[in-house]
């Protein structure tokens, strides 16, 4: 019984990690079709802390404003202060497992942070960086 439980956990976790990698891979292919650049985790890291000024808010905004610079840490919503689960897939297996969710948050958070949608190139760099955490 114990063994079958372990096997189930193993099968499920393998399935989760494979599907996360697949989702990321598929999105990267999609983004590279729109941008023609080599995606680079280091460029994603630089973009992560790059701050932008919003005319409605005196505080400069970056990805790290809410998610912090350490993606393995718990973040905090800038306005509501609700905790945000870690983004690093190595810590939080639910991350990067659903393309629709990834696109939803890229749309919302790029607009909040930079005041515009991210380009395919930026999203590619981000995805490389986040998936390596």
């Amino acid at each position, binding site marked *: 019984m114990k063994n079958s439980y372990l096997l189930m956990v193993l099968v499920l976790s393998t399935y989760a990690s494979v599907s996360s990698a697949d989702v990321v891979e598929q999105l990267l292919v999609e983004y590279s079709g729109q941008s023609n650049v080599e995606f680079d985790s280091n460029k994603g890291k630089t973009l992560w802390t790059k701050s932008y000024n919003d005319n*409605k*808010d005196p505080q400069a905004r970056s990805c790290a404003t809410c998610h912090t610079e350490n993606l393995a840490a718990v973040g905090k*919503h800038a*306005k*509501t*202060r*609700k905790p*945000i689960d870690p983004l690093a897939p190595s810590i939080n297996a639910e991350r990067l497992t659903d393309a*629709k969710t990834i696109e*939803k948050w890229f*749309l*919302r*958070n790029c*607009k*909040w942070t930079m005041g515009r949608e991210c380009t395919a190139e930026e999203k590619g760099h981000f995805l490389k960086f986040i998936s390596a955490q």
Partner: protein
Amino acid sequence: MKYFTLLVIAFTALVLLSIQTSFGDEDQDDHHYAMFKREPGVEPVKNPLYEQECSSCHFAYPPGLLPEASWRKIMTNLNDHFGENAELGDADRLAIEEYLVNNSATHSEFRRSKKITRSLSPSAAPLRITELPYFKHEHDEIPSRLVKDNPKVGSFSQCDACHQDANKGYFSENKIKIPGYGRWDD
């Protein structure tokens, strides 16, 4: 004659009870609800999509806390959701709007939802729960040092910071615990 007196007493008791229920303290209402077959509080959130999409950023406010017109207005302006971008795809947005409207205070039989509706004019569509006359009335005795200036709370929009059973739609005074302060009982 004896029966008539009993009847008069019973009738008077019933009238008195219903008066207390209409105008009495909210907490007493909650204890009497069973007699009037109306649920106390507001209906808890029952929609997984709403919960998933909206509670990533904030407490999942039960739909019975705002009237239908408010939810419709909020859901047509998600790209500027109180200064945040909360855009959704059309399918999810419409599904969530339908849930919120169908379970709004306007259509709810829950006691607090009824009170919220009664505190508003039929055409009112406040965007914030904290703007409701009923909400203001219920919170007017709370000094700002316990909420706005309390670093552990920060705002009245954090229902569940003090209302321990907020996620069950239960906002009674006996379930309030203000962080850094303790129980609230007025």
